[in-house]
């Protein structure tokens, strides 16, 4: 029992070091923003896919914002992908189509497999441009965002682009404030550090772009994936395409305002991520492909992040068991100390990351909320562990994975 525990402790230490490495790099390292200076160019034609499933509360906001972006009108086509909506989404989209003739070409999907990836796959028949941008319907892009997300595609090695997600409904309640901190740590520090260190920035599936030829090369959207963005990141990587992160390409989103919605969201992410781990993890580490050594290691660690929740819980149980077993007291004390040390230092690594993000964002007052994050972590660790257990037992129980849309809270205007 003691040796599996030591193995887990070693794994935990690796993730802790990773957190510190990213944060220190972000604070003191060389920052890469190679494409953000491209403000003048012969801009290529672009299709913007707006994924919308029952989005009557928000879809008008994103379409209004997209009509104002500073991109040559004749080169920009907006395709709202209305995925089997049963509310007023279709009606709202059609109103915009009439108001902006030639600029919006809707794709109304009335049947077929559920899920964003399946909807995007079906909508690809309407895409004729080499550059595709993707937004979820609750996002509100700024004027320059389209150009900023298109600019990296002038690099022929770039297959995918990811911008920064910024919560808009921050001040609603404790949950939204904690999610704001988590997002800041995840994007301002994690994603940018991975960009700086030439590792694997993750495609987020929204505020994002993909190159059509790269997408075709890897076989298009994977409709069986619960997180088409993670799936895309790894298939692009294995095929030798880079995904780049643009920290200064910020876009507002709406974060969940209730804990049940948040739990559903993170459980879907965990399941999708683990799907990708099962599909690509071994091949990424040991297979013959075009990823670099550092991309292999970082990519694998990134794939494993959601597995760390049940593994940490297992470590706690094992540590207690070893301690009370009493047969090898020294080992037991070491194990318990190791897990305790992780609780103090390892968790602190994530805190350090988030505090660094708040400092980089010049929002220092919100750092005071950091101690409350421990509660969000506890909720996440339990929710993710439950998702993993249900995923592992699915073959026995016959449970089917299904795609849960994240509920919206904004008032339609």
């Amino acid at each position, binding site marked *: 029992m003691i040796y599996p525990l030591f193995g887990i402790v070693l794994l935990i230490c690796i993730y802790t070091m990773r957190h510190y490495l990213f944060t220190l790099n972000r604070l003191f390292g060389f920052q*890469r923003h*190679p*494409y953000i*200076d*491209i*403000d*003048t*160019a*012969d801009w290529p034609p672009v299709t913007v896919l707006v994924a919308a499933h029952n989005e009557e509360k928000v879809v008008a906001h994103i379409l209004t*914002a997209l009509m104002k972006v*500073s991109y040559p009108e004749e080169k920009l086509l907006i395709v709202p992908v209305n995925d089997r909506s049963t509310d007023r989404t279709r009606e709202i989209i059609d109103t915009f189509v009439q108001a902006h003739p030639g600029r919006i070409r809707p794709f109304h999907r009335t049947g077929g497999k559920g899920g964003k990836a399946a909807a995007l796959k079906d909508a690809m028949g309407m895409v004729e441009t*080499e550059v595709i941008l993707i937004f979820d319907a609750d996002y*509100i*892009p*700024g*004027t*320059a965002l389209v*150009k900023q997300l298109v*600019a990296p595609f*002038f*690099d*022929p*090695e770039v297959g995918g682009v990811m911008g920064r997600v*910024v*919560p*808009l*409904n*921050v*001040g609603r309640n*404790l949950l939204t*404030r904690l999610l*704001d901190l988590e997002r*800041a740590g995840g994007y301002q520090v994690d994603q940018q550090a991975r960009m700086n260190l*030439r590792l694997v920035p993750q495609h987020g599936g929204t505020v994002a772009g993909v*190159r*059509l*030829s790269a997408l075709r090369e890897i076989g298009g959207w994977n409709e069986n994936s619960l997180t088409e963005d993670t799936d895309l990141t790894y298939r692009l990587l294995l095929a*030798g395409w880079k995904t780049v992160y643009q920290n200064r390409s*910020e*876009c*507002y989103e709406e974060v969940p305002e209730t804990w049940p919605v948040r739990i559903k969201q993170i459980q879907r992410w965990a399941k999708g991520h683990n799907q990708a781990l099962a599909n690509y993890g071994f091949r990424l580490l040991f297979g013959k492909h*075009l990823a*670099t050594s550092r991309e292999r290691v970082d990519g694998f660690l990134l794939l494993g992040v959601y597995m760390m929740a049940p593994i940490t819980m297992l470590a706690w149980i094992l540590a207690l068991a070893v301690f009370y077993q009493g047969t090898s007291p020294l080992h037991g004390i070491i194990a318990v100390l190791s897990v305790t040390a992780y609780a103090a230092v390892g968790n602190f690594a994530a805190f350090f990351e988030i505090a660094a993000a708040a400092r980089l*964002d010049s*929002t*220092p*007052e*919100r750092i*005071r*909320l*950091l*101690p*409350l994050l421990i509660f969000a972590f506890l909720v996440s660790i339990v929710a993710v562990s439950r998702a993993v257990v249900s995923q592992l037992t699915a073959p026995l129980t016959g449970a089917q994975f299904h795609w849960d849309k994240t509920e919206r809270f904004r008032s339609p205007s």
Partner: protein
Amino acid sequence: MNPLPATAFLAFAAALLFALPLLPAIAELRKKHDAQPLRVNPEYAGDIRHFARGFRSYADALRQPLQECVAAHSTATGKLHNGDRYLVLGDSDNRVLLREGNMSGTSCPLVVVAGIDLALPPGLTFLKEIYACGQFIGGAESTYRAICGEKGIHLQHNSKVTRWVHAAGDFEADRNCDLYGRASSDGEMSLHSGCFFQRLNAPRIATGSASVATGSRLSAASDIPTEKPVPAKPNSRRLIEGDWEIQSGAVITENIVTRGSLRIGSGVRIAGSAKSSGEMVVGPDVVVEGSLISAASMHIGPRGLIGGPVIAERAMVIESGTQCGSVGSPTTVSAPLIDAEEECLFFGTLWAREHGHVVPKP
């Protein structure tokens, strides 16, 4: 002895210690000092002319006195709503500017608004912005905070702009001028040898003598030449692990990605784009219709023609006779450090994040 009080005290002390770090958190949660979304200005498009436009609006407050001064060939002084003192010039006699009260030694602490052409003597320092409705000619060895010109701007040698300069007409900086921040023009921009620059934008930017830069080969090539069209394979990519060298005179019809360094021989023509993870060395007379991207440094040999964006993550040297972009297809050239030789031509943006320098032709 009853252990209950001691136990209660310990429990209370433990709860207090646990709660202490949460107190600032709870206070912030209740008072919401920092509960606004991260500020993302949706209207900000990173436009280089942003400050010039803002200053124009600011100077609008002086439109009426300006018209009156120009009509009467007079001057006026006063205070703007933010407390800045201004001087409105309606007379081209610049001795007015140099009067006692307007200057402090060789420094001018006033916002200067000129309704007429303005030619300034050398050696002055302007601590506030200048707005010029007519032609602006700055004297040698002068320092400016910012200049917005509605016609042309000409800075004589060894001058310095510390924040931004924008000319609605042509812009010319003589030798050894320092242009910190943003410099833009709606016409032609010309920077002579020894000039320092950071961010430049104009329909046409020439280093060194514009007349030389537009001579011979470049004058005939306002667009990337198409006399021998190469059938490009659209969107196909050749990925090379390690270093690679393209032999002189080769014609490449696809995008090139190398995971090492890339050397492009003289006279090569690439119908797509080229990217190297390592150093990129481009030989003389190379034509690239797409973009050139290096994750390290880049050296572009003489007389290159590049159609798309040119990006180096470390440093870039551009030899004379090179043209980036074209009249109908402007582009961006960017690197932290740029050395551009005289007689280069850029259409669009030339952006040195840290240090750009116009160097003499060898």
